[in-house]
C-alpha cells in the first residue's frame, strides 16, 4: 500500500478550488439548543436513508413507546426506523420527501404522557456521563450491530447507513477515522452547537466507531470559522487519543473527498469510496448517535436542527423528534417573515426547496434555511458564455459546462468522457455561473437518465 508514503506529505488543511460563500452562521450560532415542545403528531418516513426502504412493522391503531421499531429491512444497506414519540399509530400513508422521493410513512398521534420532555430529554440524548473506559470491552461486530439496530445513518445529510461504513472489510483495511465537524454549508449551526454543548458523546462515539472500523487514528476536523468549537473539542479530546484539527473555511470542505485531501493529503480514486484510501468519515452528530446507541442502547429518534435564515422571525437550534413537521419547527421560531421567499431543507448550497411545509423532518435534516425572495431571485438563464468560471471552482476538477451540455443532449459517451459520475453535486459551479445555467440539476438528471453499462 502507498498509504504510509502519502501520509508524510504535510496536509494542507485545504483543497483546490471551491467557493467562499458568506457563512451567515451568526444568525443562529449564538442560540443554545432548545428542546421542541412535543408536537401533537409526527409522521415517520420508512425510508430516511440511501438504500433499501424499510417495511412497516406496526399495525394501525397500535400503542407504541419511544424507540419501538416501526420499520426494518433485511437488506444490508438499509437502516431501521423507530418511533420518536409515544402514542398511537394510524394507517400508513405516503409522503414526498424534499428530495422528491415518495416513501411510505407511519403517522403517530402523540399521547399526553411522554416519558421524557424538555431538559430531561436533552440529558437522555446528549447529557450525563459518557464513560470511555469500557470501550475496549465491545467487540467491533457488536458495535456495528448496535449501530445498525439503532437505525443510524449519516446525519450530515448524506444519510448513508453508518453500520455499512463501519463494517470491517478484510480487503480494505481502515487506518483513519475522520470525524466531520466542518459544517461547510452556509447558515447551518446544528453541528456547531452540538460540538459546543455536547462534546463528550462525540468523542465517545468516535472511539467506538474507530474500534468498529479498526482505525488507529482519529481526527476531528472543524472549519476554522468555529474556533470555539475547535477549542471545546480539543479540551474534551485531551487524553483520549483523538486529534482535533482546524481546516480552512472553504465550501465544500465537509465533502468527504475534499476533507480527506485537506486532512490526510490522500485522493479518493474517481468513482471510489473513502475506504479505498483507508479512511472512514463520520459526521459529529452521527458519532454522538453511535455513542448513545452503544453505551445507552437507544436508537436514533431525535436530532438537532437549525431553523435559520433571513426569512425566519427568530432563528434557533432545536432538538426535535424525527417526523416532526417543518411547519411546527418554523412556528416554534416565530414563523416566517413577510419577506420569506423559499424554505430549504438543508443548507442553501445542496438543500432542497420545500413545496409543502407539512413534510416531516428526517434523520438527515440538518437544518431548515428560509431565504428571502430577494436572496433567491435569479436572472434569466442564457446560453453558456464559456467563461470557464465553473471549471475554476469545481472541487473535483471537472468541466461542469461540458457535462451539463452532454446531459442536456443525452450524449452519454461525452458525459462519461467528462466524468459525469464523479460529480458530487456540491453546486459550486452553478453558484458562480453568470449565465444562470442550472448545472447541478442538469448533471443530476443526466446521472439518473444515463444507461447503466
Amino acid at each position, binding site marked *: 500500500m502507498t498509504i504510509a508514503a502519502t501520509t508524510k506529505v504535510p496536509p494542507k488543511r485545504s483543497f483546490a478550488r471551491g467557493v467562499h460563500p458568506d457563512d451567515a452562521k451568526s444568525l443562529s450560532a449564538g442560540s443554545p439548543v432548545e428542546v421542541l415542545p412535543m408536537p401533537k403528531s409526527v409522521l415517520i418516513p420508512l425510508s430516511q436513508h440511501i438504500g433499501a426502504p424499510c417495511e412497516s412493522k406496526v399495525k394501525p391503531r397500535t400503542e407504541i413507546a419511544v424507540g419501538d421499531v416501526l420499520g426494518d429491512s433485511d437488506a444490508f444497506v438499509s437502516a431501521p426506523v423507530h418511533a420518536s414519540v409515544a402514542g398511537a399509530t394510524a394507517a400508513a400513508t405516503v409522503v414526498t420527501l424534499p428530495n422528491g422521493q415518495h416513501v411510505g410513512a407511519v403517522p403517530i398521534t402523540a399521547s399526553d404522557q411522554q416519558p421524557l420532555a424538555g431538559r430531561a430529554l436533552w440529558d437522555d440524548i446528549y447529557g450525563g456521563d459518557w464513560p470511555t473506559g469500557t470501550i475496549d470491552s465491545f467487540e467491533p461486530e457488536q458495535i456495528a450491530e448496535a449501530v445498525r439496530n439503532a437505525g443510524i445513518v449519516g446525519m450530515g445529510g448524506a444519510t448513508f447507513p453508518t453500520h455499512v461504513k463501519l463494517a470491517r472489510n478484510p480487503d480494505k483495511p481502515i487506518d483513519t477515522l475522520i470525524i466531520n465537524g466542518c459544517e461547510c454549508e452556509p447558515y447551518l449551526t446544528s453541528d456547531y452547537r452540538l460540538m459546543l454543548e455536547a462534546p463528550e458523546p462525540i468523542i465517545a462515539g468516535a472511539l467506538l466507531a474507530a474500534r468498529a472500523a479498526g482505525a488507529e487514528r482519529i481526527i476531528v476536523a472543524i472549519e476554522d470559522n468555529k474556533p470555539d468549537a475547535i477549542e471545546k473539542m480539543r479540551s474534551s479530546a485531551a487524553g483520549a487519543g483523538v486529534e482535533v484539527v482546524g481546516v480552512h473555511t472553504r465550501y465544500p470542505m465537509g465533502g468527504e473527498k475534499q476533507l480527506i485531501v485537506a486532512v490526510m493529503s490522500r485522493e479518493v480514486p474517481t468513482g471510489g469510496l473513502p475506504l479505498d484510501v483507508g479512511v472512514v468519515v463520520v459526521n459529529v452528530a452521527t458519532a454522538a448517535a453511535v455513542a448513545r446507541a452503544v453505551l445507552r442502547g437507544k436508537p436514533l429518534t431525535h436530532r438537532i436542527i437549525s431553523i435559520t435564515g433571513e426569512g425566519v422571525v427568530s432563528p434557533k437550534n432545536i432538538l426535535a423528534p424525527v417526523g416532526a413537521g417543518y411547519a411546527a419547527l418554523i412556528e416554534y421560531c416565530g414563523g416566517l417573515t413577510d419577506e420569506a421567499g423559499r424554505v430549504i431543507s438543508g443548507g442553501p448550497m445542496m438543500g432542497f426547496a420545500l413545496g409543502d411545509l407539512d413534510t416531516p423532518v428526517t434523520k438527515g435534516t440538518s437544518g431548515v434555511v428560509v431565504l428571502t425572495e430577494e436572496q433567491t431571485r435569479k436572472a434569466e438563464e442564457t446560453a453558456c458564455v464559456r467563461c470557464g468560471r465553473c471549471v475554476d471552482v469545481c472541487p473535483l476538477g*471537472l468541466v461542469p459546462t461540458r457535462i451539463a451540455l452532454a446531459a442536456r443532449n443525452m450524449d452519454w459517451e461525452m458525459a462519461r468522457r467528462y466524468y459525469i459520475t*464523479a460529480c458530487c453535486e456540491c453546486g459550486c459551479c452553478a453558484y458562480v455561473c453568470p449565465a444562470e445555467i442550472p448545472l447541478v440539476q442538469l448533471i443530476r438528471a443526466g446521472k439518473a437518465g444515463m444507461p447503466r453499462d
Partner: protein
Amino acid sequence: MGEEEEKTEQVAPVLSVAPGPHISAARSMRRVMIDVLVALVPAAATGVYVFGWRAGMQMGVCVVSCMFFEALFQKLRKRPQTIGDLSAAVTGLILGLSIPWTAPWYVGFIGSAAAILIAKMLFGGLGSNIFNPAMAGRAFVQACFASEMTTYLLPGKIGPPRAVEIISQATPLAAGKFEQVAYNLQDLAIGTVNGSVGETGAIACALGGLYLIFRRSASWRIPLGMLAAAAVVAGINQALTDTVMTVGHHLLAGGLVFGAFFIATDPATSPLSSRGRWIFGVGTGVLVMLIRLFANVPEGVMYAVLVMNMTVPLIDRWTVPKPVGGRVQK
C-alpha cells in the same frame, strides 16, 4: 409571539421551489462586460489624445453600429433583445480601437455588421461563436478596404496630431520591418506613435488589462502565455539576426499588449481549462511573432487570434482536466 403569528398568517409569503444551489455569487455577464469597458478606458483615452477626434469617431461608430446590428438581428428573428448584456458594446469598442484612425466612417460601420451579424449572431450569439467577433469584423474590412486599412495618413500626408514623426509616419512595426528603423521605446510605451486607434499605448493597455485580471474578469494565463511566448520568439530573433527590433520593440509595438489582454481573453472564443488557456496563449504569442517575422505583413495579432480560435474545440478536447482522484473510473 402571538402577534407575529397573526401577522404571518395574514400575509402568507409566496414560497418558491427551484433546484439548488439557492444562493448565487454569479456576476452577470453585463457586470463582466462593464469591467471590460472600464478596462478599455485608458487605451481609448490614449487613442483620443494621440489621434484626436477621429479616434473618438471610430469608437463611437463601431459601438453604436454593433449594438444596432445586434438589436436588428434579434428583432428580425423575433428573439428577446440581448444588447443589455453589453457584449455588443464591447465588441464595438474593441473593433473601433483596432482600426486605423484615418479610416472613413463606413469602414467601422461595415466591420461592425460583419462582426455582429456574421461572426456572432449567425453562429448562435454570445458563447456559441467560434471567431472573436471584433477580429472577424476587422478581417472582413481588411479584405474589403485594403488600402483604407493600411494607410495611416490623412490625404495631404497629414500624420496624427500627437505622434512623433519618423519615416513618413509609418507604424512602428512597418518601420521596423520594411525600413529597418526602430522607434524610441518610450514613445511605444506611452503610445505617441502612429497605428490603430487604441493599440499604440502599451502602458495604457496593460493598466486596463491588469484591472481586468484583478477583477477576475479575464484569465491571466492567456495574456501571460501570449506575452511570454512572443518575448521568447522575439529574443531568439534578436540573438540570431541583426534586426533593429529588440524584444522590447516587439512587445510594446503594434497590438500585442492590447490583443493579449482584450482580444485573446474573449471567453467565448478561448479554451475552458487552465491548461487549455496556457496552450492558447502561448500558441497565439508564437503565431503573432511568426507572422510579424516571416509574413509579408507587419502585424499578426488579428490573424493569430483567428487561427487560434479555430483550434479551441481541439484544445478543449485535449485538455480535459484530470479529475481529483485520477482518470480511471473505479
